[in-house]
């Protein structure tokens, strides 16, 4: 394997946060004395990403996802540990490093608010020293794929959230970064916009072999885009692997649902698997993987059996379960 696109070893990051008690007395006391609390946003993180991978960072709020992403992009200084991105140490912010990465944040913007997006594109062309013909070619390509032809000449403040994010993506990709960090890129967007952005990012990754690191609250974003996921909780790595592997470790059972005229008694069903839901003509069971064929054939045999579905547990539930049991963290590691 070539040199990893991203290599992180023993990364840690702590912040100092000022604290203040409630009430007027505490406020007055704080006039002279300031109390500081240390927050460990990232405790101990090690992983490596190969060039061209699409990786999702998952974790609850405050897990350290965004902090990690910002350290990788060179915005924050790590408190300890080694970080290499595209062969550079990010926080030194070398010109060549900044030219080979991009970070897009769903709730921040680089576009100038009162000017059309195309003005910022033009600025980036010069700042990133992009060859004029390459710039033209890429811009035309992006504009066509995202349907920006008329949008990019309107002042940014008049654009909708989704249109603005499309323009942000273009501004971030004009210099063709080999590593793209995305922090909640689809925040607050409707489903069709999410799909468009997902497809665009995937095409960019496949055509240019760029590494993509994504955080998102929408599990669909992650499961549709990222073959590999890193699960972070409390500033430490809880899982590294494919979604299937995670699901099988945490929730080995398959979820089988079916509709039928009538079902056997609960006692008989308990022998097939765990009953999750039983209402009217609908039944949902969790079944051991090796018993799925047998159970399915029995379900098919029920009177007026239809809409039979076998799937793995949804990612949201898997993660909720993973975070709900902090003690056996190591068990989840492959």
């Amino acid at each position, binding site marked *: 394997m070539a040199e990893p696109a991203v290599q992180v070893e023993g990364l840690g990051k702590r912040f100092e946060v000022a604290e*203040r008690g409630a009430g007027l007395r505490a*406020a007055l006391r*704080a*006039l002279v004395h300031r109390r500081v609390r240390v927050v460990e946003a990232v405790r101990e993180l090690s992983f490596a990403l190969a060039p061209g991978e699409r990786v999702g960072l998952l974790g609850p709020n405050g897990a350290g996802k965004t902090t990690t992403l910002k350290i990788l992009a060179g915005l924050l200084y790590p408190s300890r540990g080694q970080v290499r991105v595209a062969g550079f140490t990010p926080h030194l912010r070398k010109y060549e490093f900044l030219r080979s990465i991009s970070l897009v944040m769903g709730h921040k913007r680089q576009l100038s608010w009162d000017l059309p997006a195309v003005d910022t594109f033009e600025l980036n062309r010069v700042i990133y020293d992009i060859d004029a013909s390459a710039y033209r070619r890429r811009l035309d390509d992006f504009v066509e794929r995202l349907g920006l032809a008329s949008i990019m000449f309107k002042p940014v*403040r008049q654009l909708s959230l989704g249109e603005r994010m499309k323009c942000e993506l273009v501004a971030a990709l004009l210099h063709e970064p080999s590593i793209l960090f995305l922090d909640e890129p689809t925040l607050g967007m409707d489903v069709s916009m999410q799909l468009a952005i997902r497809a665009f990012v995937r095409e960019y990754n496949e055509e240019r072999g760029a590494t993509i690191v994504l955080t998102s609250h929408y599990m669909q974003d992650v499961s549709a885009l990222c073959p590999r996921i890193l699960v972070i909780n409390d500033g430490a790595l809880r899982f590294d692997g494919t979604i299937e592997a995670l699901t099988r470790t945490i929730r080995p059972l398959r979820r089988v649902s079916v509709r039928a005229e009538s079902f056997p008694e609960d006692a008989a069903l308990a022998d097939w698997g765990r009953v999750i839901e039983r209402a009217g003509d609908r039944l949902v069971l969790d079944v051991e993987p090796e018993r799925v064929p047998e159970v399915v054939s029995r379900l098919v045999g029920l009177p007026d059996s239809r809409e039979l579905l076998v799937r793995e547990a949804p990612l949201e539930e898997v993660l909720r379960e993973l975070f709900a049991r902090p003690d056996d963290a190591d068990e989840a590691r492959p």
Partner: protein
Amino acid sequence: MAAQLRLSALAAAQYRVGFWTEGVLAVFWSLVGIVPLWVAIDHRGAVVGWGPWELMVLTGCFAALSSVFGAFLQPALIESMNHIRRGTLDHVLLRPADSLLLCLVAAFSPWRLLELVFGLVLIALSLARLGVTPELASVGVALGMGLASVACLYGLGILTLCLSFRAMQLQNLTYLFEALLDFSRWPIGVFRGLLKALFTFVIPLAVMTTYPAAALIGRADVTTLASALLTGAALLVVARLCWQVAVRGYTSASS
């Protein structure tokens, strides 16, 4: 209304920086702002008939007015303008109370009241130095002048707020207002011609500080009081009418 004020006072007290950045800074600015007056006195002995301690009474009046502006009016204006910009004024308009009053108590910076204390102490000290013991009548006149002064202040503030409905970029007008207010440190007599007319009738700085100070040192008569009260009332009425027009033209910002 009182509940709203108490809430913003508590919120402000939480921020220890406010004590230094608002309270102490404002008093410092009141003091430093005396320097130009002092230079004039240094070279002339008096400014258009106002002696040094009489000017200090005026400075005290200015500090008091500036404190009312900084503690009540300015924060409320800025907060309301933010509401207009973000389109959240909708929430204010929906509440079952007068929308203008709600806007005027939208925020409060209690630390700025330090300046009021400073102003009152300065007035008392200067009056003592002048050997003036204000009679009941002149205190009454001064209070009336103070009322007119605050009325003018609020009238102008509301007009500024109305203008910001028309164009977001006019929000800077609050700062223009603050900058102009600074000239009410000087007795109105120093201005001539157009500016004097401007500062007496359009932006009545005269009513706001010169008249109250004159009343305190026993130089004002009932006619001036009447005209001051009239000016204040007229400004408030005009401002109220403008507010009604402005709210009617309010188009809730979409983003």
